[in-house]
């Protein structure tokens, strides 16, 4: 389903609504659907490392599942407090940043932080020479090499549909087409809350339909593209 089809389907119920109003409802539904179900997952190369830079923004991220540096899967640091014990403050106010590490270690870790409404990953290495400040010692330093590819596997929000678009992700919602009808149902349901066309029984019906799609999508997301076997009972 594309932008035009979606608009026309909503306008069958709410002909007074224009493109912008409908797309805002659809985009809100798209955010809600991806957030609730975690169905939209993607491997994405976010950028290359920069020596001494600890934090990297992951656009549209809901949660990070795995991180690769230079195509090598690296583990998540279990304790964010340990990782941030002596922090590189570049992500807040870079007035006291740590010096770029002079030695390199391949024992790398990542950890997520939520900062300023976005998710960032911190990339650290086990330090071969301790990082010291204010009589405290940390065993972790910011990543020390430049030009290593950072790849992230994550659940993310979809790109919003845009007015006037004719192709790409701003024209066709990024989620599986099986669930495009969910967005339409949600937008129609929300439209019926509007005093211009208020029908609470219709709200219940369409939002209920949307919630059924959510359940279905959660199952699909959990299955993770794997079909499990069936235990068949036998009498011995």
């Amino acid at each position, binding site marked *: 389903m594309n932008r035009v089809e979606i608009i026309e389907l909503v306008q069958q119920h709410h002909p007074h609504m224009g493109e*912008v109003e409908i797309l805002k409802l659809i985009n809100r539904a798209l955010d809600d659907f991806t957030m609730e179900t975690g169905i939209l997952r993607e491997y994405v190369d976010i950028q290359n490392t920069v020596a001494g830079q600890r934090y990297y923004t992951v656009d549209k991220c809901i949660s990070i599942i795995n991180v690769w540096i230079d195509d090598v899967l690296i583990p998540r640091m279990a304790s964010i407090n340990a990782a941030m014990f002596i922090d590189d403050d570049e992500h807040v106010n870079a007035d006291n940043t740590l010096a770029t590490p002079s030695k390199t270690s391949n024992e790398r870790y990542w950890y997520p932080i939520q900062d300023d409404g976005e998710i960032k990953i911190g990339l650290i290495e086990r330090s071969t020479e301790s990082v010291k400040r204010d009589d405290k010692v940390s065993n972790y330093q910011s990543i020390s090499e430049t030009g290593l590819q950072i790849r992230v596997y994550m659940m993310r929000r979809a790109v919003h549909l845009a007015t006037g678009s004719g192709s790409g992700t701003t024209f066709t919602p990024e989620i599986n087409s099986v669930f495009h009808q969910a967005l339409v149902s949600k937008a129609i349901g929300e439209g019926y809350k509007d005093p211009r066309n208020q029908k609470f029984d219709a709200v219940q019906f369409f939002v209920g339909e949307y919630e059924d799609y959510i359940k279905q999508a959660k199952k699909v997301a959990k299955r993770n593209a794997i079909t499990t076997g069936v235990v068949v009972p036998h009498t011995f």
Partner: protein
Amino acid sequence: MAAKLSERIQDLIGFDYASNSINTENEALEVACAEVIDTLPEELLLKYAVAPTDLISGAPTMDIRGKRILRVSRIEGSNDDAIFIHRPCEKLTIDEYLYNTQDANSIYLPTSHSPVYTEDPESAVATLKVFPAITGSSADTVNTAKVWYITYPYGDFDGNIALDGLPNEVEHAVALKTASYILDTMMSDKIQDDEDEEMLRMLQAQKQNLDATYQIEMGRLSGEKGEQ
């Protein structure tokens, strides 16, 4: 050969347009036309409408004084691919138009997919404006618009046998309504000047008959079976 409007009226009530015996015979015809045009369904008027006016970047607005706007559509698509999608424009009042089109963050902001038009009286000339702005430079291309309309007939046109934008079938209704207005004037003369009660009653009876016939005629034209 079709009859002139003045001949139709003369046949109905015996009034001679050439006689100039009353002051407002042209106005009676204008008002009757306006009333008929305002009452007829847009679908019927669209069918017989004159060629639409194209709004292009060189002439993005239209003077709509004395016109009834039937439809406005704005074209989106692709000139290169020869895709020309006519999106019907929603009519907004001038205050809605000024509000909705100026705030880019508004949920009501019109777009090429849901364009709007308004009738703007700002410069004392009622002007039709379309949003999003008309930027196409030649007719029937992307980002231009088309306006279908009918002009209310004006002036001395009793000698016409047809009216632009109206089907022939409607002319009888126009003649009936005009005749009814002229009878009003003639009845006034009988009351004010002649004090002739017998003539007055006869004119009243004729007017009642004309009004009833007019109602039947308009019902036929406006009803389900009215589309000729």
